[in-house]
């Protein structure tokens, strides 16, 4: 039986091996997970410090997005240790005292040829932050950043796929012209 269909079986075995590798192994092997340098808790800052999203992730007057806050923002409250935990002490010793910026890993780094305006999407299109970023604001720990091994770009494929942008623009009747995003 095996000898009779040996060729077909080997062909199918090769196909199955490739399909398994392609669908199971490749999506995992394509990325490396890089832990954030500081285990920041959005939940604690929102609950205990009463911080709002806009306190740290601001839009400047000219509409540009300030992105991840710099150390100055952290130091305004953490000039001295807030509590006695080891994590807090490590944070103060590593970053606040030597005044060293935290090398945050970006979850969504756009390719260089892409222009994305948070102001347009938040203020004009009234998109909720969660629509793209998920419930980050309620998380207690920061997930590791996924970095593509070949291109070194960070973030999920969902964000960097132009089809996602185009589909959303099409659904909402927004322009899909090249210069809208590639300037």
């Amino acid at each position, binding site marked *: 039986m095996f000898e009779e269909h040996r060729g077909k079986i080997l062909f199918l075995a090769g196909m199955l091996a490739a399909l398994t590798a392609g669908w199971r192994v*490749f999506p995992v092997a394509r990325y490396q997970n890089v832990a954030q340098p500081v285990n920041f808790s959005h939940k604690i800052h929102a609950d205990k410090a009463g911080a709002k999203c806009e306190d740290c992730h601001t839009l400047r007057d000219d509409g540009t997005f300030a992105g991840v806050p710099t150390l100055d923002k952290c130091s305004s409250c953490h000039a001295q240790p807030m509590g006695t935990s080891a994590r807090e002490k490590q944070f103060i010793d590593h970053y606040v005292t030597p005044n060293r910026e935290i090398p945050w890993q970006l979850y969504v780094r756009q390719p260089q040829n892409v222009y994305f305006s948070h102001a347009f999407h938040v203020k004009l299109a009234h998109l909720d932050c969660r629509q793209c970023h998920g419930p980050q604001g309620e998380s207690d720990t920061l997930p590791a950043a996924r970095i593509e091994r070949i*291109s070194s770009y960070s973030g999920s494929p969902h964000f960097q796929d132009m089809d996602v942008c185009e589909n959303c623009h099409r659904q909402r009747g927004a322009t899909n012209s090249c210069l809208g995003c590639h300037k």
Partner: protein
Amino acid sequence: MGFTRRDLLKFTGGATVGLVLTPVPWGLLRDTALLSETWPGVPQPARGEVRTRYTTCTLCPAACGVRARCVGEQPVSLAGVPEHPASRGALCANGLVAHHLPFCSDRATRPLANGRASTMEQAVARIRTAVDACGPDESVAILDPRPGRAASLVYRRYLAGLARGVYCAASNPFGVDLENTRAIVSFGVPVLDGWLSPGRVFAVRSHFALIQVEPEYSRTASLADLWVPIVPGGEAAFAGAVESGLRGEPTDPAAERVARMLLDHKPAIAIGPGAEKLNISLGSVGKPGGFLRRRDVAPATDFADLPDRSVRVLFTEEASLPWSVIERKLVARGAVVVALTAWHDAYASHADYVIPAPLFLESLDEAATPAGSTVAGFSLSPALVAAPQSVIAPPEFILRLAGDSTTYPDILKQRVAGLKKDGQGSVFTYADAKSTRVRDIGSADDLWKLLLAGALWLDDPLPQSGSAPLRADASYAPAPHRSPLMSKLDQESGLRRV
């Protein structure tokens, strides 16, 4: 039976077919494409604070306001300045991508003497010798493509110090009151394809009827209200026929139709070769909706008026005349052409010396009166990126040739001080779109700072008289780019939406 070569091939074949049905090939394609963005040699904008800076485009005489989005110190995108009096918020395709020009491989980055690399000192010494060797019937000329700048003043000063220096420029003391014009008859001028400040033209396009008279069905002709095809070189004859039609005399039917349109849409103007007499017939000089005289233009020699075979040394910036016209004026033997240019094209390919000039955004420069403006204008174009070390601004080179220790920025400052001293006109600031009278600005230093941060000084209108001689032509029209990419950019640049 063991695992044979045939078995291996079958297994590999199956694996290959299976692989095509997985995300692997497409994912690898995408990742390597992204990787190619960070290869060595690919410019990488710095990561950092995003800032907005303002400048004025000097790529052509339109002098459009530019809003530059910079990451760190690097401009990453350029856009127009909303409400800018000349450009009305629009930029042309070239202006939109001007921040990419410094990376163009065709730019001039080192001095060349007869096609060979030279040092700046050698080039200056040899050109000085050539100037000194100028004979009694020969001249040293500078062909200034944009008269009225501080650079023009440098050129004039240098030539005044020579025994036989001639400053050549196509000075045009008239602007077009486009906002009040109701009809334009254009003899081959690309009105909708780069004439004057494109944003200004498109902003008022719906207010005037456009009659395009030219042999070719050009882009402007295709968008005109009426296209009149004529034989090549037939502009003057057709203009004469239209004049006859304006007087009510029987003439060519097409000319009669044009004359009727012009009479129905007053005030009207005519532009391009053959338009001078027609404008006098239309009474469009010194009247609202016509050609208005402005203050800034000093008289200059028309290059075409120079005797043939009389120019021993010629300095040129950008190409403003066909090379055949230039060549006719050069002495038969031993002529020296010095191209002060940023590009290895146009005159540079004919020049004996190529002196590399900085590009727009690479050095502090000046944009004089916006093309077609009815009042004099002045704005600064500050450097936003570092220039290569071996380039030198054309007026700086001429100052060096003259042995003058004054710097070009000093001369620009003197000009700004002069504007403050005159106290005329107002300054439109790009960041807040506000206009301030010059006399309300504290000092010349304050005015300099305003202009450096992005501002346009505009003179007060002059009282007009209709008897002045007129020269309105297409010399301001930059050569349009024809590539499909440029057309696409042009369509999306804001010009079509204004």
